[in-house]
């Protein structure tokens, strides 16, 4: 049984790559990983991808990416669950290393969204929700988030400025990041004057479609030591689910799947939430970000917006979050999004985060979820060397 560690990362900038296909984008990220980190022989390639089965009509993407790279003597698997596609891929890659079946796995995700029509993108990203009552009646992911935003803001007496705190923070972090899609700082005035997506959400409250690929290499600790590689340990992980319909939950704004996954991950890692120095959450909207932070239990429910405004989650705050801008500002290439979160946490642990470097960090937490917290994944990383 090996202790899983991350030994390297490869990624592209997030953006709109009009002249590259999904394989060229993957190739760039994988080439960086294999060349820069000396990861040559691998046992498996796991790939997260949310939308190629819907856009490109291409199934079994991992097999075709392995073919692109000329990796034939390996195990391949494709994972497809919206923004958590690569979270699932990484979760299973870690299991593969822990079990001893694999010594070294390359895992991550890729997405190519920009070439599709807006209406097909809006529908595509909404298909992780249950089609019967979402897609069928013309609800979208963002309109679902908007409805729960109204309930949440009513319940905790929050205003539009509270909702704006997170996107402003994310764009601030993104402004210094080299691989982010949106590097402009934004203001409250810009948010409220922007086109509406679904009231109260405007285009600055929701993530935009992006292209990108991000991969990490996970090996056993022995393998990393034998090969003289620097690494970050994966100390614990957890996953849980809840009813897909927010109206069937005890409360639509309580993210039970996230808090259950969190309990499992912290228990496995032998840590408490107070010991975590940095958090990367997967929040496709401003409101979902607040609900995730509420469920991580760093403050009282309903107070996350206030904590953001007080600087608790800023780069120089007590627990920095989404240090390269998160899904909103770094960009949200769905199937690759959680792989980017891992890349960013790795850069932070290795003191390679440049202008976004967080000082004195020991333990970090990565969150990802399918749809509106239907299934969630938490990973605890730390002990870099």
């Amino acid at each position: 049984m090996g202790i899983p560690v991350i030994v390297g990362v490869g990624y592209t900038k997030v953006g709109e790559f009009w002249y590259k296909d999904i394989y060229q984008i993957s190739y760039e990220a994988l080439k960086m990983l294999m060349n820069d980190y000396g990861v040559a022989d691998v046992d498996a390639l796991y790939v997260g991808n949310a939308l190629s089965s819907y856009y490109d009509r291409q199934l079994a993407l991992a097999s075709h990416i392995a073919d692109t790279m000329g990796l034939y003597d390996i195990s391949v698997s494709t994972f497809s669950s919206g923004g958590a596609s690569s979270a699932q891929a990484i979760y299973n890659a870690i299991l593969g290393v822990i079990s001893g079946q694999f010594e070294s796995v390359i895992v991550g995700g890729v997405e190519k969204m920009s070439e599709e029509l807006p209406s097909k993108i809006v529908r595509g990203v909404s298909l992780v929700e249950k089609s019967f009552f979402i897609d069928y009646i013309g609800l979208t992911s963002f309109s679902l988030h908007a409805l729960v935003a109204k309930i949440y803001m009513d319940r905790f007496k929050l205003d539009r400025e509270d909702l704006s705190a997170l996107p402003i923070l994310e764009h601030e972090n993104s402004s210094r990041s080299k691989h982010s899609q949106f590097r402009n700082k934004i203001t409250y005035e810009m948010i409220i004057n922007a086109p509406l997506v679904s009231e109260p959400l405007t285009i600055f409250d929701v993530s935009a479609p992006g292209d990108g690929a991000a991969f990490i290499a996970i090996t056993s600790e022995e393998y990393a030591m034998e090969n003289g590689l620097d690494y970050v340990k994966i100390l614990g992980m957890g996953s849980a689910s809840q009813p897909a319909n927010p109206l069937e939950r005890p409360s639509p704004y309580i993210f039970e799947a996230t808090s259950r996954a969190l309990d499992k991950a912290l228990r496995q890692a032998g840590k408490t939430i107070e010991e975590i120095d940095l958090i990367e959450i997967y929040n496709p909207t401003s409101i979902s970000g607040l609900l995730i932070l509420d469920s991580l239990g760093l403050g009282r429910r309903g107070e996350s917006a206030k904590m953001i405004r007080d600087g608790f989650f800023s780069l120089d705050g007590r627990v920095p979050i989404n240090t390269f801008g998160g899904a909103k500002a770094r960009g949200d290439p769905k199937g690759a999004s959680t792989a980017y979160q891992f890349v960013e946490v790795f850069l932070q642990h290795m003191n390679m985060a440049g202008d976004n470097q967080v000082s004195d960090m020991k333990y970090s937490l990565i969150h990802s979820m399918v749809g509106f917290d239907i299934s969630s994944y938490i990973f605890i990383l730390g002990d870099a060397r």
Partner: protein
Amino acid sequence: MTEISDWIYRISRYRLLGSRCVKCGEVTYPPRLKCFKCGSEMIDYQLPRRGKIIHYTSVKNLPERYNRFGAYYIAIIELDDGTRIFGLLTDIEKPEVGIRVEACLRKLYTYGEEGKIIYGLKFRPVID
């Protein structure tokens, strides 16, 4: 979802037929096979066709199949028995929280130029 799935779900959708747990009485819409609370069997349950708007929002970036509209409103509706469901609003200029609505059959979308037309329920203001 395919044309066949849309056909399979037609009864529950046209009639607003949900499900009710034989043991704990939990009511769900869409219908479930197994109670998500206690794990028991579910039986058909006829939901009332009237209720009131609890929350609403507009959909402005339109999904495929619904992009023939300029924009539209969707709402969380509390039906007269207390069950809350998502509903697409119609025949309404400006929704308000608390107004009474009722289910009505409308065309929703089609499968291409020559494909099946899919109908379903939307909610319109009650005129007494």
